[in-house]
């Protein structure tokens, strides 16, 4: 229970409900509404309230981020962006949400109804789970798991399942292709994503996100540039953002697995996607940018917010700058590029740590310089190799089908011959 008691929000609610001497005495005076003996009820209520606050906070952030992104897209494309509803168009996405809610909810005839309805829920639920372990300020988190970082990896991998379910349950062949692509990309990128965090774990010695934030005497982006690059790219792939957004490639697959979804189910997918973007930015801000840490002129929450918005801006910038990649290029990048980079990062970090197990801040700066040199050097080498391998395979590519690798048979199994004739 110690961990939870350090949670300031939880303690605030709990102590206002039941004022016990054990956990509330050092914190100030509280109301203590419930009588003694009802601690368990207070426990439950404050837990639910905490979750309620968090989830609604995320929803608000999503609405704001959609608006912000669209404004930014406008700036990038030299136009003004949404500006009609509310001051500077702040309420545009609210209006969008209301519009989506009132649309007709269509379920295709061929769809597996139960799974079709389950998919959006499964899609949005891991995204909210991610936020539960992220500390957005000093003592402000839902829970501080001692396996927090691994928990984030595990929970985000659930979205792969949701995509498969959504694509299959629609009973639509284009959705299935999109689902297959998504699975290939998600599973491939999970490996560099997990491995890129190993360096951080070795430096901080803990999996808890609070512990990682506290371990950052200088932000880990300086000490782990390779880890940051790989993690950033891998998380872009995991949340399906450009240049890795093949599952919704409108030029090839329409809206991908979202093809048959309409109304609020579509809205939930949309929400999940943007919430995942925020989640990824939050994780990057926490792990690589020292989270809520910062000079004490501003409160910790503000620092966290600034870093979050910076990373979000970077993601938007990437989206506006890069074209979409081909599926084989994406998989090449994962297996032949990022994977090697993570191994280099792990080796370099291991050597560093075995030389200086407990470095001071000055030594950390030296390490940072070495790491950046190695990072740039190995990025150049790996990109050189990647270029070469793509060139080598180009002649083979002409003979392959336009379908993803290993899916040729699906065609015959899913398309009835009668349909083909018709």
């Amino acid at each position, binding site marked *: 229970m110690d961990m939870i008691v350090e949670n300031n929000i939880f303690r605030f609610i709990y102590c206002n409900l039941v004022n016990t001497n054990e956990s509330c005495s050092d914190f100030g005076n509280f109301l203590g509404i419930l009588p003694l003996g009802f601690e368990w009820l207070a426990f439950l209520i404050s837990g639910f309230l905490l979750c309620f606050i968090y989830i609604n906070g995320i929803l608000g952030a999503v609405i704001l981020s959609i608006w912000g992104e669209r404004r930014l897209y406008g700036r990038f494309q030299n136009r003004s962006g949404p500006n009609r509803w509310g001051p500077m168009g702040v309420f545009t996405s609210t209006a969008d949400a209301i519009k989506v809610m009132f649309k007709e909810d269509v379920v295709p005839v061929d769809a597996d109804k139960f799974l079709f309805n389950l998919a959006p829920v499964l899609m949005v639920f891991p995204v909210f789970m991610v936020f539960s372990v992220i500390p957005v300020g000093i003592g402000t988190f839902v829970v501080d798991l001692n396996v927090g970082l691994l928990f984030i990896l595990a*929970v985000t*991998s659930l979205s792969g399942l949701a995509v498969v379910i959504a694509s299959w349950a629609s009973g639509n062949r284009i959705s299935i292709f999109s689902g297959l692509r998504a*699975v290939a990309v998600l599973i491939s990128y999970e490996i560099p994503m997990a491995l890129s965090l190993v360096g951080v774990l070795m430096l901080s010695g803990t999996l808890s996100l609070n512990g990682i934030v506290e371990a950052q005497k200088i932000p880990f982006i300086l000490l782990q540039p390779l880890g940051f690059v790989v993690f950033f790219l891998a998380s872009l792939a995991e949340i399906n953002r450009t240049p890795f957004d093949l599952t919704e490639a409108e030029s090839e697959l329409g809206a991908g697995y979202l093809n048959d979804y309409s109304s609020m189910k579509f809205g939930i997918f949309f929400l999940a996607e943007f919430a995942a973007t925020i989640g990824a930015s939050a994780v990057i801000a926490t792990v690589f940018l020292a989270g809520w840490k910062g000079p004490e002129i501003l409160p910790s929450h503000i620092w966290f917010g600034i870093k979050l918005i910076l990373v979000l801006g970077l993601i938007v910038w990437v989206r506006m700058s890069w074209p979409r990649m081909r599926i084989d290029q994406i998989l090449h990048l994962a297996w032949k590029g990022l994977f090697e980079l993570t191994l280099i990062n792990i080796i370099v970090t291991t050597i560093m740590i075995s030389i200086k197990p407990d470095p001071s801040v000055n030594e950390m700066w030296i390490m940072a310089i070495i790491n950046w040199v190695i990072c740039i050097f190995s990025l150049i080498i790996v990109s050189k190799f990647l270029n070469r391998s793509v060139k080598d395979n180009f002649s083979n590519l002409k003979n392959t089908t336009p379908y993803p690798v290993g899916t040729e048979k699906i065609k015959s199994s899913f398309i009835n011959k009668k349909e083909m004739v018709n």
Partner: protein
Amino acid sequence: MSGNFFIDITFWVVSFLIILGSFYVVTARNIFRGAIGLSFVFICVAIIFFLLNAEFLGVVQILVYVGAVSVLIAFAVMFIKDVVDGSKYSKYRLLSAFLCSFLFFVLIFISQVTEWNSMDSIENEDALAGLEGFYFEESESGSILIKKAEVLSDGVNKGVFINSTLSIGSSLISNFLIPLQVIGFILISALIGSLTIIRQRRKQ
């Protein structure tokens, strides 16, 4: 009304869900739904792990089983001709039902009859005291300290808590080093093996 109560409630509910889900997996005619049921069972088992203070294992269970294995199975399901009605029973159905239930009762009998070296079954108070009074904690330098507990009457805290990712890691590279390497070998050979099998198919 202690924390124990919530844990017990959760345990019973989740166990019930696990058994229900397992039955659904083996009886469902629609294989895709069966696969989704399987991932549901995996998640519930992960919750059981969390209840057993095995957070690391629970997270790994979700990461590997739900994130990779069940997705792969769902992937494989799409290669079946008729997914909706594809899972048929063999001719040994009744016989196997009998065998399995018999095995179940034998296992239960054995687990009940055997005197496990368990926290619950230790009757010698001294031995229990010697064990109960200590718990394990990570020190700041990362080594594991043994501390004497002052209040340990709560049922939740009964048991051996060497509950850290760190100690799993240290046992992986000390006592279980050779199994770990064997596992690595198996993984790499599975990788190469599956690639080889697929390649053969593509040549044809």
